């Protein structure tokens, strides 16, 4: 049993208290530890990806207890893929937070950042629904702290809404877990996958309720309409680096939907038949349309980016809701694109804030470091709106292609293409007002201060990654395709989790464990 797989959770979990206790008053030491931790996470992510790339499923049994009874951490290609994506995004976001000085505007930024990473990594790696809930809470409680970092009345009020909405979501999650446990008697995902198949067709009421409740919980996380209300305010009011890191949080919801609804409640399962096509797909299409209309209607740049996140999550969910290997392939490609593009756009919106009073879409004097900022916005907006030649276009093409053979092809194509047009108009309007009309405004006496070089390196890094994601679209889709195929053949996952021996598993270990138990009594 390799111990590497639990390190993405344990490493931030140790770094965070270390930062609080040992480096509390020294921002530079905190920065060094944080950056070193993230570099280690990226190396870990690459190493684990290499290990699982041939389809092996990594399993870690905590305390060596066998699967349905003990807690397990499972890393298959999908989990590790998301872990690596998180580490890369977080690295650039952290560089930006350091470069722009955001981390020094309040207490404990770096410690909360590490706790947030611990929660996200844990949510991706856990093999147990109750631990998914626990890691959701870990990432949420860290995000509450990050969300109100640096204070301010407007931010605090947005924080209250965010926390309350997520508390309701957590309550719903517990109701879902309770009903699943009452129906099946287990919360281990691999074990559930087998037991749900055994439920008699005439007694599926409980499990159907549980499946819908669970879908609603994940839809809250993924900001799917009509459960998206928490997102625009909190993302727009959160400090920019935090909002950029939150770009991965909506993907945690998408990941959970992919995982649970291919493994436990697969599309062909009779009990939950129609949940995917009848409910998820229309909600996804509405989110896509509403998000992009919000882009057009937004009055300030940060809200515009927040709505574009809703729109791109809608796009991801359209691809997921198809529940075919092609759909999931496209969805995973688009998840990477959407995370990078949303992260870059939030950072750019903070760059624009240099020298402007606010981010309202009105003509104001040119911002500091205008040319570079404008160039980055141009590239990121093209990517987010899905114009050729960048990755948004490739991802959209994959989704349209995956939807071509389905009965809902007309709806999907109409909404995807129509909303793309709307978002192009929205981004073009925002860009021209902020970057072009500013030249008609009388220049101030003193030139505005340009953002620091490190801020540009961080933002530029994300933009370069977007370009790389386009250039290497071929290898990336081949890899996401292999992930998608293995998701629809969960045999390897289930057998690895359930058949790996440990304490309490059937066989000779069993007797030894009991014998030891008796002696103690």
């Amino acid at each position, binding site marked *: 049993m390799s111990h590497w797989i639990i390190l993405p959770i344990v490493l931030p979990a140790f770094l965070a208290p270390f930062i609080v206790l040992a480096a509390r008053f020294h921002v530079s030491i905190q920065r060094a530890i944080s950056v070193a931790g993230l570099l280690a996470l990226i190396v870990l992510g690459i190493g684990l990806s290499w290990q699982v790339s041939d389809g092996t499923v990594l399993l870690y049994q905590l305390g060596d207890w066998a699967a349905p009874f003990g807690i397990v951490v499972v890393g298959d290609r999908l989990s590790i893929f998301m872990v690596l994506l998180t580490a890369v995004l977080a690295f650039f976001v952290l560089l930006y937070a350091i470069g722009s000085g955001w981390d020094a505007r309040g207490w404990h930024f770096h410690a909360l950042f590490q706790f947030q990473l611990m929660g996200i990594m844990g949510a991706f790696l856990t093999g147990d629904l*109750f631990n998914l809930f*626990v890691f959701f*809470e870990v990432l*949420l*409680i860290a995000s*509450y702290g990050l969300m*109100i970092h640096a*204070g*301010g*009345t*407007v*931010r*605090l*009020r947005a*924080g*209250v*809404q965010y*926390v*309350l909405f997520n*508390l*309701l979501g*957590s*309550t719903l999650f*517990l*109701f879902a*877990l*309770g*009903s699943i*446990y*009452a129906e099946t008697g287990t919360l281990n995902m691999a074990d559930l996958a087998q037991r749900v198949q055994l439920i008699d067709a005439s007694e599926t009421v409980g499990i159907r309720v549980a499946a819908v409740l669970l879908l609603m919980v994940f839809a809250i996380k993924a900001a799917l309409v009509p459960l998206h209300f928490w997102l625009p*305010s909190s993302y727009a*009011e959160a400090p920019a680096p935090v909002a950029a890191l939150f770009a991965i949080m909506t993907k945690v919801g998408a990941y959970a939907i992919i995982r649970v609804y291919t493994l436990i409640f697969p599309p062909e399962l009779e009990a939950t038949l129609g949940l995917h096509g009848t409910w998820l797909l229309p909600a996804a299409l509405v989110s896509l349309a509403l998000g992009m209309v919000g882009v057009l209607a937004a009055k*300030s740049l940060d809200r515009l980016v927040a709505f574009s996140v809703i729109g791109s999550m809608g796009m991801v969910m359209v691809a997921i809701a198809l529940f075919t290997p092609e759909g999931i392939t496209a969805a995973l490609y688009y998840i990477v694109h959407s995370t990078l593009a949303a992260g870059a756009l939030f950072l750019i919106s903070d760059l624009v*804030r240099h020298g402007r*009073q*606010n*981010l*309202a879409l009105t003509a104001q004097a040119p911002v500091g470091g205008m040319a570079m900022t404008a160039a980055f916005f141009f590239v990121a907006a093209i990517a987010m709106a899905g114009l050729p030649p960048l990755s948004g276009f490739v991802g959209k093409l994959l989704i349209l292609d995956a939807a071509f053979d389905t009965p809902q092809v007309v709806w999907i194509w109409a909404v995807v293409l129509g909303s793309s047009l709307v978002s192009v108009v929205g981004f073009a309007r925002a860009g021209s007002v902020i970057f072009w009309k500013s030249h008609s405004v009388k220049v101030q006496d003193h030139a505005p201060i340009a953002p620091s070089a490190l801020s540009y390196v961080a933002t530029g890094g994300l933009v370069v990654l977007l370009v790389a994601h386009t250039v290497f679209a071929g290898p990336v889709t081949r890899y996401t395709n292999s992930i998608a195929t293995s998701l629809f053949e969960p045999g390897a996952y289930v057998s690895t989790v359930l058949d790996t021996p440990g304490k309490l598993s059937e066989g000779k270990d069993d007797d030894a464990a009991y014998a030891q138990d008796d002696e103690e009594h």
Partner: protein
Amino acid sequence: MEFLVASAIGIMTAAGLYLVLRLRTFPVIIGISLLTYAVNVFLFASGRLTFGAPPILRDDVLAYADPLPQALVLTAIVISFGMTAVVVMIALGAFLGGDTDVVDDPADPVEGDAS
């Protein structure tokens, strides 16, 4: 006992939801606390209701209480308690700063305060 437990969960959920919809921070927080109480009882009941049965395997005992939901409830109680404390602090900060305890955004949002 089934009726008592079921009605307790139902009444607490209904009261909690009603309070959450009041959209002022104090009732909303009380409402969320009620909802978490309801969900804790619900989790407890998900292991089936047993009376006076031990949760530990013994040789001469035939009826057991399911120990797992008890562990789950313990985790849920700790988490919800911590979360409630956090939301009280943030709500207090927002109330003292903004002089209003309405949870909704105002009709005309104040721009540019958040830098």
